[in-house]
């Protein structure tokens, strides 16, 4: 392997300094170096969305992003979503709606939904479907996944007329 490059990346709120190979993907770093195996590898070519994480708040396929590109950025994975024992409203909604079968696509699906609700706190069903169309699920038929996202949306909006934060 060619020489490694130093990067500093914040993962789930914690700063990490790593030496990475120039061809190493963010996915590989998360899974193999940081043992954050909640982010899944499936197609490895950016089609299935199982490896979706947030980078500076944007949903990305971590299999298509080089680790060096994450230098200086803020990465959020499924492991960083809950606050202690308290699940994120999307995680709770997925459980309540029966949106989880095998659960392999679930982390990527939830991260895509987090990105959606951050920019669109009140999505229509069509908007939710469009936002999640890059995440493949083979078990559920998506019906309960979309329901879960729509159920979670109002729970994430602040009460009153405050701005989203």
């Amino acid at each position: 392997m060619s020489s490694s490059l130093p990067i500093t990346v914040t993962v789930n709120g914690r700063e990490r300094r790593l030496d990475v190979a120039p061809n190493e993907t963010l996915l590989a770093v998360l899974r193999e170096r940081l043992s954050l195996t909640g982010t899944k590898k499936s197609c490895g070519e950016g089609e299935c969305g199982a490896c979706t994480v947030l980078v500076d708040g944007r949903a990305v396929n971590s299999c298509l992003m080089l680790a060096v590109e994450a230098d200086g950025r803020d990465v959020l994975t499924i492991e960083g979503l809950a606050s202690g024992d308290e699940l994120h409203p999307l995680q709770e909604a997925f459980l309540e709606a029966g949106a989880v079968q095998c659960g392999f696509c679930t982390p990527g699906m939830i991260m895509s939904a987090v990105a959606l609700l951050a920019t669109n706190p009140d999505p229509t069903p069509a908007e939710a479907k469009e936002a999640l169309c890059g995440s493949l699920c083979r078990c559920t038929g998506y019906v309960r996944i979309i329901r879960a996202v729509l159920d979670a949306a109002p729970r994430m909006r602040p009460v009153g007329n405050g701005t989203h934060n």
Partner: protein
Amino acid sequence: MPEHVGQSVKKSGGRERVTGALQFAADMQMPGLLHAKLVTLDCARARILSIHAAAAEQVEGVHCVLTPADLPRPMPRYGPVEDDRPVLADGETKYYGDPVAVVAAETEQIAAAAAERVRVQHEELPGVYTVEDALAPGAPLVQEPSLRPDSPHRDSNVYNEWHYAWGEAEADEADLVIEETYRFPMQVHFAIEPHVFAAAPDEPDGVVIWSTVQHPFPLRRAVAESLGLPAAKVRVVATEMGGAFGGKGYPKFEPLMAFLALRTGRPVRLALSLAESFLAGRRAAGVVTMRSGFSRDGRFVFNRSRADYLIGAYADITSSIVSKAAYIGCGAYRIPNLEVTARAVFSHTPPATAYRGFGAPQYLWALEAQIDRAARRLGIERLQMRLRNIPDRGEELIPGDTPVDGDWKQGLSLAAEAVGWHEPLPPGHGRGLAIGVKSPRPGAASQALARLHHDGSATLMVGTTEMGQGSKTAFSQIAARALGIPFEKIKVVCGDTGRVPFDAVTASSRSTVCMGNAILAACEEIKRKTAALAADAHGVSADRVSVSDGMVHLPETVLNYAEAICSSYGPGEGEVMGLGEFRLPRDPEHPLGGPAPFWEIIFFATEVDVDRETGQYRLTKLVTVADIGKAINPAAVKGQDEGGSLMSVGQAMMEQFILDERGRPVNLGALDYRIPTTQDIPLRTESLLVENADGPGPFGAKGVGESGATAVAPAIASAVAQATGASFTELPLTAERVWRRLKQQERAPDTSAPD
């Protein structure tokens, strides 16, 4: 005590799934783990002249390059029915992706780089990739006749042939006779989790396998026999799977991993890519020619069909796939004279294996389309046509087998009503109906071990595996009700042959019924034993003690389980175990080895909106009505039907695994093989359940899981046919195919589509 059965309690293991904490096979960390990579050729069938591993072995970090020369001679072969699959290609590759060697190295990257440096001199040979090619005179033989000297088909590419018939063979006098040939393509399972196979040496003299496998017990047999080990020395751990759909059912590369682990003395893991997973198993393609006779009033007079299933180079489980599909050649209909001849045909293509629906979708695609064609020709409305042919509860479906065990007319009518069958159709729209029916694996056994611990909590130990279907949840609900303890106090241990008792397979929608009944029996034994313990400890006769709702009732007092166990074993000690078993009857005279314990039936209704200019169409409504006896967990049951039916929307509208003229995949991987996304969800979906508590499982349950994926395609094609006036014989029903048919029709109108 809360009522658990019949409630949509949250999934066991759900929290671990939404937080990413659940360890799938590729997530497991093992000290000293080596990574494996298969060495394959860029062609399908080839003669292997030599294998040079030296260059690969010199790569830093490579521990072993295993070639056939390192394996026993003759080459060990295995399979669930026939021992015909070699651990590595034996002198000749049989399909694109057939491994000729395997590399074990420190990292996946090193293994992949080294695999490319294994030089395999080979000569590509002509192969057969379609039913027609495989059956042509002089076609190259896929399997050497010496592999199956006793088979009457050994000098052909027919693996086996099955023939089922009843009624009069020559009763061909009907008012209307329709004959047509229908085609169903190869498809891949596309579980989002690719296959993972790992092995490690196990003390003493054994091996442990971790695999994304649905059926750990058949795998244990395959590994033990390949390595010449007693079953007790092989432990198979079925990991929690990220979807399976039949594709993870039967042995694949686990024997190879076992040889590699024993050779290197280290744990070894082969994590396939998604593309490689396509080559590890796929659905058999089908060609069905059907000749159907009807009376003027729309009743079946006869049905005769020949169904050819294109399988790979190895038998795998295809004998069951094809024979079961052919055996229920009447579908859900009363057909007085029936004849089905079905064949499994070998080819130089990736292995065909179980796929949700087993062989039913290929066959039902033809049968349901024939009914639609007849309805049109006879001028009978399609719902009425079907209702006239559906047998009543208690009526014989297949001579000598289990009678009809549900109100099937009610189910179909419910589906029609839900889709708005009788409402006026908007312009460009069409509606369709179809019925999916199959039966679970006959003659099979399930055993369950239930342990009631000193504190009144319980562990269920079962061979059922978890692939997302939610069996752990259903089993916990069943046991909670049977023992009278809270759902939360139950843990289910699945699919580890070193820990759990025997189970045949996790397949064919059998687990809730078969393992569910075994769990009920185990819980009953626990209650009997606990009553006896308490009676003994309190010096009363056992017949004066009863157990109900989690409490042990003695003449003078009432104890909870913890108190009852404590009264016998002392504080914090002891436990009570129950072993339950459920066996379906085995009947050597029965064509499938035993009768159906229940018919797994589902009714589909669809509505589409077709753009005649482009052939593109939207699925505006998809209704499923499943007759499941009793839903242990309604949300989970509906989730199965939603998931199965959307999987079949892919089957109907877009999915086909395409090989080129040399047997090489054209669409290998997620970029080129399309499955439904959120954008393909029907505008409206509805999953309804018929619950008459008339099944043989716990609380009247029947099975669920497969049926959703049986007959969506004919229901969609039926709707498109109504919308366009064109009818179809080949899947997938892509926009291009619809458009071409419409163009053709402009020149020569089709008279077989419904009005």
